[in-house]
């Protein structure tokens, strides 16, 4: 793919971002991050309260990207086969089997949204892990492939009853965990409540332009971005230092008020995590029309690509969101570049 094509794709990426911003207000940063993850071909975990617009956001993206969009609600009695097939009695009185949400769109499946993933059992998580990692599924004596699939999942962190914490191995499969928070701006909050266009989500989504580009070209575009955006030795050293800091923050004099940093981390970022961070940083540089990655590109995606991969001491696990935010901020503050 030529540089010119990449430039055209960049315009499309910015158009996609703009289209979704038209539908979802006050979420500029999450929208940019999701756009980044789409072009870095990574799965996204959304974190936020109920009713903040996560589903609408993803539907808007699905509409503009094109391809198959499927969703499923996580419940405690959801079983792995519920993702693969349905059985029912047909009009002819005989049992029938139809494809579940994963298989319904076939190879064209581009976005699969798993709502409240932490309500599903670990068996479901493990199936999803394989689909996310290998983008294949064995069923009905056949091997199904989903080359264009991106999984979006969200988890409700407020309620803990009847939920299963997503294991660190599963979390590590997600490229980003993006917090969705309604900004506390009076004007924005008032329009969300009183502007009638926000009352009907389906109608709202229709405002976003459909099928902006060919979703089946995204893998190729992503590969080209990774090939064309340069990372110098200084940047490699910087990202390596950041990685080391996630494993042993005290080496870089990282301090968090009220936290024993020496005991905080059980496991730092994984090699997969750091490589995903770099992929996202490259996409960020490409979207900002640069040919090289700068430290600021890493900063733009560092928290979202790293925080959810860190394994904390169980003493601090209950305060994960707050501590992880502080930790990633401090790591960026303390690790110097170059």
């Amino acid at each position, binding site marked *: 793919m030529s540089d010119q094509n990449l430039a055209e794709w960049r315009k499309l990426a910015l158009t996609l971002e703009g289209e979704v911003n038209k539908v979802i207000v006050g979420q500029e940063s999450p929208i940019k991050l999701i756009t980044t993850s789409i072009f870095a071909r990574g799965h996204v975990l959304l974190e936020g309260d109920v009713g903040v617009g996560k589903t609408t956001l993803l539907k808007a993206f699905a509409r503009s990207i094109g391809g198959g969009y499927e969703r499923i609600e996580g419940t405690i009695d959801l079983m792995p086969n519920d993702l693969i097939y349905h059985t029912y009695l047909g009009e002819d009185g005989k049992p029938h089997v139809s494809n579940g949400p994963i298989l319904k769109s076939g190879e064209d499946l581009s976005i699969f949204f798993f709502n409240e993933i932490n309500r599903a059992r670990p068996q479901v998580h493990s199936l999803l892990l394989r689909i996310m990692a290998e983008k294949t599924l064995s069923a009905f004596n056949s091997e199904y492939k989903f080359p264009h699939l991106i999984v979006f999942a969200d988890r409700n962190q407020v309620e803990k009853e009847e939920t299963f914490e997503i294991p660190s191995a599963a979390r590590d499969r997600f490229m980003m965990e993006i917090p969705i928070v309604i900004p506390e701006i009076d004007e924005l909050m008032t329009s969300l409540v009183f502007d009638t266009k926000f009352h009907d989500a389906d109608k709202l989504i229709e405002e976003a332009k459909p099928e902006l580009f060919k979703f089946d070209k995204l893998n190729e575009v992503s590969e080209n971005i990774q090939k064309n955006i340069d990372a*110098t030795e200084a940047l490699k050293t910087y990202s390596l230092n950041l990685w080391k800091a996630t494993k042993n923050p005290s080496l870089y004099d990282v301090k968090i008020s009220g936290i024993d940093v020496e005991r905080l981390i059980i496991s730092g970022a994984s090699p997969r995590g750091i490589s995903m961070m770099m992929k996202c940083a490259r996409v960020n540089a490409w979207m900002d029309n640069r040919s090289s990655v700068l430290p600021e590109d890493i900063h733009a995606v560092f928290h979202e690509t790293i925080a959810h991969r860190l394994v904390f001491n169980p003493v601090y696990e209950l305060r994960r969101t707050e501590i992880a935010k502080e930790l990633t901020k401090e790591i960026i503050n303390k690790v110097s*570049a170059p």
Partner: protein
Amino acid sequence: MHKLFGFLIFLLTISLNAYEDPNKFKDIDPKFIELNIVEPNQRVGYTVGDIINRQITISIKKPYQLIEESLPIVGYEKRYRGKLLGMTLRDIQYIKKNTKDLITYKIFLKYQIFTNNVVAKPAFITADYYRLINPIEPDNVVKFRIPELTIATSPIAIFGAVKVEDDMSAFRGPLTIDKMPSNQKIRYGAVGFVISILTLFYIYSRYTWLPKQNKVFSSVYRKYKNKNATKKEIELLISELHHGFNLTINQALFTNNKERLFKKNKSFNYIEAEINDFFKLSKAINFERKNNFNLAETYAWLISFTLHCRMCERGLIIDSGDIKKLGFK
């Protein structure tokens, strides 16, 4: 000879005119004067060097006024019947208070004794005559007498024991100069010296360079100012400057947290444009592999920037006219 004799006669005439006979003026009617004298409590035992204080308050009814020139003059030696009495007026001060009917003078006199005797002997401060004038009749000058003060002077040593070496008592220490004032001066001097040293130390540690004071830009400037402009040196200098900024704010400095630097040291605010250029250059060299810059010019700019950082580090303000723009794009 005649001329000399004539000159001596002239001098004698002048000196005779200078002496004024007190009897030349009439005494003032006492009803115009109210006199109050505070005499010293000590009347006897004065010896050479002692001071006698006398306070005289005179209230003069108007229209009379005191001729202030008639007050005793400092240095005047008291005489009696032409002989020196051995006491001199050392100091005179007065306060004048003018009311509708009265003029009141409060006069403070200090006499010093310059005489001694082998036995106790009466002495006195002779009477003084102050002259007054009525402005309505300026030719009619009158006088007023300040009474004498009788005292007694005493010997320093007991009569007969005139040799000090014969009066060597073990209970009496040697006569020494009082060391208190000198010690006091030394103490004040020492305190002043310590304060000055601490002040200088504070100024130097805060605003200039001292070892181990985290004054990093000074050492960077000294290290690089005379080096050759090579790409390697430029890279090293940029790296050291980044390190300097990081030390200054105790965290990594990026373009998006410059405010922290300005908050820490307001002087850097004045070179914000240069800092922006520095980051642009640093990114180009470290992260963008750009090589289209003039080594000599860039190095010269970096040295100038380092110097400005050193000045900022010392709390100085850079003149905007001194700031150079980096030609690098």
